[in-house]
Every structure is written in structure tokens, then in C-alpha cells.
């Protein structure tokens, strides 16, 4: 994971949950919420956890930013690009539409960044090799940056089994073989986690921050 890492993917693939988990694991300096698509379940809602861990959240600086769906983001999103000794995770909105926001960083294309595609094969528009490759092409086309790695986040939320993750890995492996993009992480819900799991890439033990117990 480079100092500046973007998470992209089909919407509902789990980008925001992964953004939080990666941010806390790697103790980054900034989490940048670029989600201008969703009205609920955005990274900025978890500000309290970030504050406790000395991570600064950059999102909208409008009043009521938690509760409006204005496609507005703060100009502070450039801070990590201008201070590359700091680490930042950028959480994009879903699909190629969410990836459009990458265009504003075109002037910084000499900066070495990672752009990871989060894939959950149980989302119907990313459930085959061809659909995932099409999504990569669309994201790269709209966003102007190359995807540099794949994250297997195949899950059915609290009904997930280890077999479900393996099933996802098989499909994503086909994408990886075709595109030569590495699978950099596999996300495993903490309740399924054990030390002897074998998956491609590093295993991220996933805590669900958005999912309240009663959901």
C-alpha cells in the first residue's frame, strides 16, 4: 500500500468498511471521503473512531455534511498530495461515476499512488470475470488513473462462510491472471477469522463499523 491509496469498486462492494479497517490497521494520517453518491453509510460518519486514533477525516466542509447528499467535497482533499510523507486512504464513491472524482488529481499524475479495486462477487454487477474487467476499464477511463491491485471482499455480510470467500477468490483470480493485477488483500470478517486461513494477498481481519448489532 503506497502512501496515497485510493479505494474504488462497484457500489456496495465494501469500500468504506475497508477504508476504515485499512486506515486503523496502517495508522494512516488522513482518510479522505470522496463519496458523492451515497446519502447514508459514508466514511465521514465514523469521525469519532478516527479522532480517537488521530486520523483526520477530510470530506465535505459544509455544515450538516453528515446528513446531506450534496456532491461537494473540501479543497483539503489535495493536502496528502502536497505532503507525501503522510499516509492517506481515499474512499471513492461507487462505480465509474464515483471514480470520476479522480480526474481532479490529474495534475498530480507524477505522484506514485495505489488504486485498489474492491470486489464482492455477490454484488450482481461484479459477479463474473468479464463484468469485473469491464468495471476496471470503465473506472480507468473515467478516472484517468490505472488500477494497481485487487481486493477480494466477497461476502454476504453476516451470512458469509469461508467457502463464499474462496468462491470469490476463484473469480477474482481469473481477473488477476488476465489483467496481471495482483490480489493485494482478502477481507475476512472477524468472526470467520483464524490464523491458519490461506488466501491470496494479505488477510485483513474485518470489523464491521457501519453494521449495528441489531441490523
Amino acid at each position: 500500500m503506497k502512501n496515497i491509496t485510493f479505494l474504488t469498486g462497484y457500489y456496495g462492494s465494501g469500500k468504506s468498511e475497508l477504508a476504515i479497517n485499512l486506515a486503523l490497521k496502517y495508522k494512516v494520517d488522513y482518510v479522505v471521503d470522496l463519496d458523492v453518491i451515497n446519502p447514508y453509510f459514508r466514511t465521514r460518519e465514523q469521525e469519532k473512531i478516527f479522532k480517537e486514533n488521530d486520523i483526520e477525516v477530510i470530506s465535505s466542509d459544509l455544515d450538516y455534511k453528515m446528513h446531506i447528499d450534496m456532491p461537494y467535497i473540501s479543497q483539503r482533499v489535495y493536502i496528502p498530495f502536497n505532503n507525501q510523507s503522510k499516509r492517506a486512504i481515499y474512499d471513492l464513491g461507487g462505480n465509474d461515476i464515483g471514480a470520476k472524482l479522480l480526474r481532479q488529481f490529474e495534475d498530480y499524475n507524477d505522484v506514485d499512488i495505489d488504486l485498489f479495486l474492491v470486489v464482492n462477487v455477490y454484488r450482481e454487477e461484479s459477479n463474473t470475470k468479464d463484468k469485473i474487467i469491464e468495471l476496471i476499464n470503465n473506472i480507468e477511463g473515467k478516472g484517468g488513473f490505472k488500477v494497481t491491485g485487487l481486493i477480494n471482499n466477497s461476502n454476504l455480510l453476516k451470512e458469509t462462510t469461508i467457502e463464499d470467500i474462496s468462491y470469490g477468490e476463484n473469480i477474482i483470480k481469473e481477473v488477476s491472471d488476465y489483467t496481471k493485477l495482483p490480489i493485494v488483500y482478502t477481507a475476512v470478517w472477524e468472526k470467520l477469522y483464524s490464523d491458519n486461513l490461506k488466501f491470496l494477498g494479505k488477510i485483513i481481519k474485518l470489523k464491521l463499523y457501519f453494521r449495528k448489532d441489531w441490523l
Partner: protein
Amino acid sequence: MAKVLMKGNEAIALAAIKGGVDAFYGYPITPQNEVPEYLSKHLLANGKVFLQAESEVSAINMVYGAAGAGKRVMTSSSSPGIALKQEGISYITAAELPCLIVSVMRGGPGLGSIQPSQGDYYQATRGGGNGDYHLIVFAPESIQETIDTIKESFDIADYYRNPVMVLVDGLIGQMMESVDFDRPKKERFVPEKDWATNGTKNHPGRRNIANSLYLDPAELEQHNIKLHQKYEVIKKNETKFELIDFDNPEYVIVAYGTMARICRSAIEMLKNEGIEVGMIRPITLFPYPEKAFEQIPENVKGILTCELSMGQMLDDVLIANNGKHKVGFFGRAGGMLPDPEEIVGAIKNFNERVVK
């Protein structure tokens, strides 16, 4: 199709397609935008109709027209948008036309907020439109239940020639769940639409008319009586509810939709503390499951109505309870969701909650 992970709004859209929707007319509003978003892509690709109208008023009148022509039609919106549609909904109901209306509630009144709420209980069950009419209102608590309901809703609407409303809050619209679209649907008799205004080919010499205007009061009264009799049949046939932990409850909670989910957790927490609490979960809000209240044991200490509103369903609970037990109320509004602990507290301090 095996299990998939779906957002509530997408699931509403796909379930409508599985239910045989021919046309969607709507106008965007948060937090239900993924419904038209999904349908715009998938309906058009399959030769069906998707139309984003210039306003909600326009959309509901397109529903009126297409339903009159005998097609399976739907619209979806959220609180202020449903408010704008009320005139058309009254007309459609008066003209006895079937359609599906999906209402994804957000905080109100007025423009309110985009966060989840149940503030449109009155709007759904009492009607914001004019006259003596009712919608058949379902209030599912999960995405799976929403899918199963929507798949069946066109059959129900067609059978009774009455709009069906599926009422959820923004949380159900926005959250994700793993769901199955292939669960079996109840087989229902769906009559021929020989009333449809689709030409005279099948009945030469007879023109069908979709109408809600009856200038002769005697005739209009007869129409009202006929509608009323239909609602009585609906009450008899379609009332749906779930009883949870009803073995030997000390208190009974009444809650629907997202609030029922929160209450399920609260009931578990109370059980661990040795306090047995049951729940009536209305699945239809009209007809309201009054019969469920007959099953509340005599020795229950009280009934707690829980809502994401300021006490709307409370009216129906008071009617159904008919003075038998003490009734209390717990509500949050404006887009605020309580934690289960707050419900636990309300049961423990029930006496402070008593309304009547």
C-alpha cells in the same frame, strides 16, 4: 439465482421486475434514488417503460393512465414526493385501478431530512388524498421481506383493483442484506382485466372508461359503499402480522419495520435480564392487525408502542387495545434511530411511558 448482496432500493426494483412490472413513472428523491436508477437500466433493456416525469404530480397521473390501460405499473418516492402524489393516489383508488406505490420514508414534516423515519404512517394509512379510500399498506422489516412482498404486490393490486403501498424507511432502502429472489410466491387468482381502457377489440361496442367523477350523489354513495365493502374483504383476507416471544410476556411491544428490528435486539437484552417481553409486529398497516391484540394475555403489565415518529400508530394500538391494558409510547423522530438500550430503558420505566 443464488443468494446475492443487495441494497434495499435495488432489491425493490428487481423484485418489481420479478413481479412483472410493465412500466415505472417517477421523479428522483433521496433516499430512494436507487429504485429508478436500477429500473432505468433494466426496464428499458427489456422493452418495458421507464419514464422520469417532470414532477411527482405528473408521474402519478402517468401511473393512473397506464394502470387504466391494464398494465402493471409502479412509482416510488419518499415522504415529500409521496405527499405530492396524494391527489393522483385518491383518483386511482376511486377509479379502482391497481398499481404499486413504494414509499421510502425520510424525516419530516416539510422537506425534513434525508435520514430514516416512520413519520408517514398517517399519510399511508389515513390517506393524504381526499375521500373515503384506503391503500393496502405493507411495512416489511427486512430486505428479504420487502422482496417477497413486492413480488406479490401486483397480484394483490390486480385482484382487488386497488393500489398497494409498500412502506419502508430510508434505512431499509439504503442498507444491504444477503437476499434470495427465488423464494416461492403465493399463488393467487388474477382476474382478466376486462375493464382496461385498451380498445374495443375484445368487447366491440363497449368502451371502458377509467373515472372518479360521479355527479349524482346517490350513485357516488353507492360507489363509496362498494369500495367500503371491498375494504372489509381486504381486512378479512389480507391482514398480516407476526407474534414474537409470545409465550408468557410481562410486557408487549408493538413495532413495525426498522423499529421492529431494533426492538428484537431490545427483547433479547431484556430476556437476558429475566424480563420477558413479547412483540406484535404488524406487517400490514392497513388492514391493521387488531386481531393480534386479542392474543395478549390478561396479566400483561402493559403495551409499549415503539415508532420512529411521535405517536401515529399509537392511535391504532389504542383502538385495538380498546382500554384493556395500559398503553405506553416510545418514539424518536426526525431521522434519529434509537439504540436497543433505549427501548430496554423504556420497558424498565414503563410507568413513565404510559399514555392511556
